[in-house]
């Protein structure tokens, strides 16, 4: 069964900490994405990557960075966590669009910053 695995389902961190959210896919997908989801705001794209070592800013990249050193792994980094980054974070991966597969999502990480 193909999978996108996010390392933590729930995470509690303190303000100012550096936080790493990890996402691994086993489908050999080129594209990987990080979204955050907040009530009433839908899905908002933070960063995405089309290939190893490539990254592109999404709609709300401020306060975040990413790393993609290997094709299967896409990490989201909160450089200095703040309470307004408390959210559900969703990782997704896909083949290049045009192949009719859409995204496969991970199970999500609910991050609370205190």
């Amino acid at each position: 069964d193909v999978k996108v695995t996010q390392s933590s389902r729930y995470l509690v961190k303190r303000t100012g900490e550096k936080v790493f959210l990890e996402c691994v896919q086993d489908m050999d997908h080129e594209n990987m994405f990080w979204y955050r989801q907040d009530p009433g705001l839908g899905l908002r794209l933070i960063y995405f990557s089309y290939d190893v070592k490539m990254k592109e800013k999404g709609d709300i990249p401020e306060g975040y960075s990413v790393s993609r050193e290997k094709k299967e792994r896409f990490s989201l980094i909160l450089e200095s966590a703040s309470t307004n980054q408390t959210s559900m974070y969703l990782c997704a991966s896909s083949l290049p669009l045009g192949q009719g597969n859409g995204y496969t999502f991970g199970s999500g990480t609910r991050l609370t910053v205190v």
Partner: protein
Amino acid sequence: ELKVEQNPLFLSMQEGKNYTIYCNYSTTSDRLYWYRQDPGKSLESLFVLLSNGAVKQEGRLMASLDTKARLSTLHITAAVHDLSATYFCAVEPSKGNEKLTFGTGTRLTIIP
């Protein structure tokens, strides 16, 4: 810029009734996806619609795509409680970037 609108945003319906969720989008696209999200969970793929006139059905849900009207519908027949969830449509651009554009989601609540 591709914009995707879903309506309604919230839908409360009785068991046994039929209803339709609408997904309109602003630019040319031949591919559209529907996802389901249960409370506190992630999104799972429901339907993949790849051409004009495409229709997919699973159980009490049926999705269709009209690319000329830039409209997809998700029809619920004889709703049951376990269909309560948030449903998202997502549109793939015809060309250019590699990102899907998601609708805002429709929170569906089925009342006994």
